[in-house]
């Protein structure tokens, strides 16, 4: 299909033009390669030699990725399993679907990113066919397994495998199938002979397209439009049904004379256009079939591959890359032969004006008489957008600019914006860049995504220049791209840390919105810790610096950075982190070298001491001596608790005095407890109560016995008995029972369960109540002797 053979077509039919002469010097025929081209002028992946695997096992297939202009971006020998399908995700990652259902993801430069599996069922039955599709959920993968079942994942970023229901009676693979996306539900449409089946999540139903000719025959090919709105079905009789993908409405039909099954069929239409057409490709022939009964046929010089786009079809072949689209309305109006549309007249007028001919005035007058000058200008601007050749763009824009001179109030934005957009488009369409976006695609893609794509292709300078040209905000534009660049830069292993760090700082300088810590984090992820530290030197925000340093286990550096920053919170963060990280010795050694940190650590407590000190002063002023004294004691206690906490590495802060001493005894620090007891003048009674209950809790009966003998107990010895009994230690309790003073002795003996002694004591006291008390504890079976003894004594007592 050469350019000369391409006159402007009558309205409603496509027009093709060459995008690039391919520079890839392919030796193989395209038909021998597995091809996948990303939409929106994206890269092309080729897998060479994949079919010849059986013949020469030594020759590995080669995976190559080219830009749309045929420049090699990367290539690797394919070492993994048998590939079934290649496809591109929306973010321009290459999906390689293997026979066993494993999907490998590579980036533009053939660098492996990750892989996932399509599940056990696929693994067992193998992949027969696979399709990569795009929906509002993202990029999905659909698989037809060897057992003729479909499995699909609607979003590979959030992998949820769905196994579609079985198609009844399906014995052989369907002749053709497609994935449809309707009302946020992904469904599979498949054709078996003359039947169409619709598979949704739960069921399989037979469908018939409305208005289908009864003699249509068996389906051989189907195509879903780029936006999933339309569906085309081709049968073996050459009949093409075109309608809505919902199968609710037929749009048109077409009969073609060629009966052989085509290689590819894709939609060719632009959004919001009423003209609908499909492009059908055979080996050497291309047919554009639309609503009119006559299709347009092209002869293909070589093997070609069709890439559907939002507003047309890209046709790839070994030597060239062409684009076929419906001519936009504005262009039609202007370039139609003998067109009298205002835009056409304006273009003509401008041409005459340049020739310094008075005809310019005539044309202009004609437009102005119809009061169509604003329309004429808009038409020219719009048409310029759709033009691919800079010269034509210029001519149209010049005409628009010329027309604008005769208008008072034509808003300049559309013109200016179009000039900018065209400049961007021409820049990226350049052979070296190779992103052949049309104006419509560009508007759909948005500038932000385009910038991302440039970044993905590592075209940082171009992206930055575009940002500057379009005056995008630094944080959105330049800084972001620089940060990406820096992150890429740190991965270059061939340069020394010093070089890379300097290069990055040189480029980035103090650009706002740059986070050196992010770049450093990336460097750290790549295993370049030293580089990361160097980069962090440039990070002005200590708050960002310190956490990463801590993560890299450079705690000392983090500490000094934190101290330099003067941010106490940050210092605390590091200090607390260190405290958990290091053992106590090293922790204090580290702090010792950093007096600021040490004092801050102290201050954490001192801060509260300070507040108490203030309270103390106020209490003195108010002559509330009691409160003042209590506060003073509390200050003393806090300081002490801090030491205890440091010495024993256990929480002591905020305990009351009682609890502090009690905990000390529980932990066996008797000397310290003793010290507090004296320093705070704890009353003897409290101390004894506290000590015996803590010792009992600890189960330290030996120490308790020692303590009981240290001096005369101020609380008596009954508590010793009681507490031992409470801890179910009768043996210990018995030791203390004899030391209980006589008036409580009966009770003590009863407590330890020694009724005999209790009885003796009661009898000795000649106390009837006590006797009764002991009696009440006697059980008839075991303590008969004791009971009798008591009864006798009581009787004697009563006699007197």
């Amino acid at each position, binding site marked *: 299909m050469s350019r000369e053979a391409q006159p402007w077509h009558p309205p409603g039919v496509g027009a093709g033009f060459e995008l690039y002469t391919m520079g890839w010097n392919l030796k193989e025929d395209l038909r021998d390669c597995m091809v996948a081209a990303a939409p929106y002028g994206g890269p092309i992946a080729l897998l060479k030699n994949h079919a010849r695997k059986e013949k020469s096992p030594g020759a590995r297939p080669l995976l190559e990725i080219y830009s749309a202009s045929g420049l090699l971006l990367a290539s690797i020998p394919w070492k993994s399993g048998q590939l079934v399908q290649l496809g591109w995700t929306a973010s321009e990652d290459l999906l390689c679907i293997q026979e066993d259902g494993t999907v490998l993801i590579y980036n533009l430069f053939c660098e492996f990113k990750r892989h996932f599996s399509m599940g056990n069922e696929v693994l067992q039955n193998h992949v027969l066919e696979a399709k990569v599709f795009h929906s509002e959920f993202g990029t999905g993968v659909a698989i037809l397994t060897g057992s003729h079942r479909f499995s699909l994942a609607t979003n590979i970023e959030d992998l949820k495998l769905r196994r579609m229901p079985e198609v009844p009676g399906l014995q052989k693979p369907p002749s053709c199938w497609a994935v449809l996306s309707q009302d946020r539900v992904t469904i599979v449409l498949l054709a078996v002979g003359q039947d169409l089946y619709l598979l949704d999540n739960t069921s399989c139903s037979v469908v018939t397209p409305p208005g289908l000719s009864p003699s249509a025959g068996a389906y051989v090919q189907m195509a879903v439009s780029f936006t999933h709105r339309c569906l085309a079905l081709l049968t073996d009789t050459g009949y093409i049904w075109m309608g809505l993908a919902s199968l609710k409405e037929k749009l048109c039909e077409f009969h073609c004379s060629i009966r052989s099954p085509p290689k590819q069929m894709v939609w060719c239409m632009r959004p919001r256009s009423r003209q609908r057409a499909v492009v059908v490709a055979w080996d050497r022939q291309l047919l554009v079939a639309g609503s009119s009964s006559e299709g347009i046929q092209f002869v293909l010089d070589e093997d070609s591959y069709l890439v559907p786009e939002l507003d047309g079809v890209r046709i790839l072949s070994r030597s060239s890359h062409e684009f076929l689209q419906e001519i936009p309305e504005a262009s039609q109006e202007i370039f139609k032969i003998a067109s009298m549309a205002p835009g056409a007249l304006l273009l003509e007028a401008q041409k005459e004006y340049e020739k310094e001919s008075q005809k310019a005035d005539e044309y202009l007058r004609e437009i102005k008489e119809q009061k169509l000058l604003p329309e004429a200008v808009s038409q020219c601007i719009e048409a310029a957008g759709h033009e691919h050749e800079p010269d034509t763009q210029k001519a149209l824009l010049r005409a628009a600019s010329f027309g604008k001179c005769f208008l008072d109030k034509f808003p300049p934005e559309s013109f200016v914006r179009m000039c900018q957009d065209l400049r961007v488009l021409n820049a990226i369409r350049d052979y070296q860049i190779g992103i052949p976006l049309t104006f419509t695609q560009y508007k759909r893609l948005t500038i932000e995504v385009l910038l991302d794509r440039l970044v993905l292709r590592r075209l940082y300078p171009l992206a930055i220049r575009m940002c500057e040209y379009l005056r995008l905000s630094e944080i959105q534009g330049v800084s972001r791209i620089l940060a990406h660049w820096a992150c890429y830069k740190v991965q270059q292993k061939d340069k020394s840390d010093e070089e890379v760090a300097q290069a990055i700082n040189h480029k980035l300088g103090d650009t706002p919105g740059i986070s050196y810590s992010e770049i450093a984090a990336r460097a750290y992820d790549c295993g370049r810790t030293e580089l990361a530290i160097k980069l962090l030197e440039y990070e002005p925000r200590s708050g960002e610096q310190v956490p990463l340093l801590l993560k890299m286990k450079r705690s000392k550096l983090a500490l000094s950075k934190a101290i330099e920053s003067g941010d106490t919170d940050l210092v605390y963060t590091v200090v607390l982190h260190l405290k958990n990280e290091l053992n106590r010795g090293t922790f204090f050694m580290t702090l010792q070298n950093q007096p600021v940190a040490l004092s801050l650590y102290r201050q954490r407590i001192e801060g509260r001491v300070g507040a108490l000190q203030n309270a103390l002063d106020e209490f003195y002023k108010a002559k509330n001596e*009691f409160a003042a004294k*209590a506060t003073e004691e*509390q200050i003393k206690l806090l300081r002490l608790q801090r030491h205890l906490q440091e010495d024993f590495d256990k929480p002591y802060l905020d305990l*009351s*005095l*009682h609890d502090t001493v009690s905990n000390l005894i529980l932990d066996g620090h008797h000397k310290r407890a003793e010290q507090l007891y004296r320093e*705070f003048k704890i009353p003897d*009674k409290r101390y004894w*109560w506290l000590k015996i*209950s803590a010792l009992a809790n600890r189960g330290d009966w030996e120490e308790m016995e020692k303590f009981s003998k240290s001096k005369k107990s101020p609380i008596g010895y009954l508590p010793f008995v009681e507490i031992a009994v409470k801890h179910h230690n009768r043996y210990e309790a018995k030791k203390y029972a004899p030391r209980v003073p006589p008036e409580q002795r009966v009770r003590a003996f009863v407590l330890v369960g020694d009724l005999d002694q209790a009885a003796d004591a009661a009898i000795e006291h000649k106390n009837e109540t006590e006797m009764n008390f002991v009696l009440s504890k006697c059980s008839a079976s075991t303590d008969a002797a004791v009971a009798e003894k008591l009864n006798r004594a009581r009787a004697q007592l009563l006699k007197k």
Partner: protein
Amino acid sequence: MAAAGRRDAPEAPDFGILKRLARDQLIYLLEQLPGKKDLFIEADLMSPLDRIANVSILKQHEVDKLYKVETRPAPSASDQFCFLVRPRIRTMRYIADIVNADKMSGRSRKYKIIFSPQKFYACEMVLEEEGVFGDVTCDEWSFYLLPLDEDIISMELPEFFRDYFLEGDHRWINSVARALQLLNSLYGPFGRAYGIGRCAKMSYELWRDLEEESEGDGQGRKPEIGSIFLMDRDTDYVTALCSQVVYEGLVDDTFRIKCGSVDFGPDVTSSDKSIKVLLNAQDKVFSQIRNEHFSSVFGFLSQKSRNLQAQYDRRRGMDIKQMKNFVSQELKGLKQEHRLLSLHIGACESIMKKKTKQDFQEMIKAEHSLLEGFDIRESTSFIEEHIDRQVSPIESLRLMCLLSITENGLVPKDYRSLKTQYLQSYGPEHLLTFHNLKRIGLLTEQAAGETLTAVESRVSKLVTDRAAGKITDAFNSLARKSNFRAISKKLGLIPRLDGEYDLKMPRDMAYVFSGAYVPLSCKIIEQVSAARVSPRPGGSPAAHPCPVPQVLERRGWQGLEEVLRLLNGHEFSVSGSAGAGPGGAGRGCGSHSLCPAQTARRRTARPRRRSASCSPCSWGAAPSPRSRPCGSWARSEGASSSS
């Protein structure tokens, strides 16, 4: 119990009306916001609300989801929010935060705030400050009184005590007055109103003003309430400070009765889940033991279970017809009773486990000697040991308060040492607790040197009696001195006994504290409305120990002037507005003892719950469960006087 046993006792007014009224108003308010809405409820309104309207009623009126008002904003998708809250600044901030957060995220919703029981100006101010006043609509749910039982109504205002007595905040007085207005309009004009205390007086006066403004048409209606008593809690702290030994009180101590119902844990129900039980007169078992001294409860319960068994056993030897009768009429009641019985026996066991410990016995002993004024030194060292051993922070404070009140303040030396000990045990932050307790006069220090009473007696020698009274008033309002000894002597609050106090056949109200103390508020009501000691059912009309002469339905406070003077004055007594003379006031109806304001419901008013720094309070419009025996007593006596 007393009232229930007397055939001539007048019927209690139907307090159910209050419930129905509150429910209707709430429904009306909810319907003001048509369509589905989420309801945010203040935590302490939940239990009262539950008694008024359950979830299904709320759902009927298109309440979609229920949330608790708390610090975390709720993630809700509803378009209408309704807040049922107390008028608190904190809550207003919470609501404002929600509204502002919605504004930030561009959500528009409808917000309605329903204040219970009334709206305060300060709340609106806060809403205005936060810039959301225009976004919300405000309403009042005049839910002033919740009937907890057939003869108890409560305002369920937990913050009243702290707000009024500690902070000196008077805003709730208005709510009290409105509650009185509500009662007056529903149950006819009060025959006579008596009051002691500043708050009582203010509430009464405000209520009178409200009545005059509204020109109510309740005139000529048959009055259902004879007399009302308004008393400030601070006239009688002792009642609230003593350990409870009646069954209901112990249930409260052990399990906490909230809004008339209690959660019995797994150890009581002997299953693995808790059961919520409504404790009121409907509970046949409970109503018989609630006011009994705990020592006799077990005996009663075992007797009851034997009776029950006997009734079950009657089945044997029945013919078919009788059996049919039995199954259809009695069996259900028996089963119900059986279930309740096992619950209460379980509760008793739990209480026994806690209260039969040595510590508790000794504490009761110490309490009694404090009340009697014997062995103060010993009691003080008991308290000290109590603190030293960290037995219980609240109980220690309670005992200290009791000591302070009975002894007119602690001796400075003791005060200091106890305080020091307490701080050592529980931390220095309790300096604030002590400060607060001192401010409300619960735990004070005797002034060094002369006590005020000494000054007072000296002054009274110099001037006339009347002037002396006035001077004492002045002193009292200065120091809020409690003259516990003098009052208890005058009114005979501490029964003098020879031998054991018979708890099974008590001869006075003191049995509620094991014979150690007669609740002051109840005694006063008895004094005012009693003609003579009415024979208690089963009890003998023993000679009353009270030295004050008794008259038939006292006109005003005649004869009690001395006591009132000791109680810091502010008393008033007004005969009924309905034109019924003091004699006719109670015709056909009991002088219903309503001691709202300050006879706070015992359990909530108790300052010993936690420290005073967070002391909760609500006041009951009726005698607390604790003082209930006295309450019903007063009623029965009122009845006997009018018949």
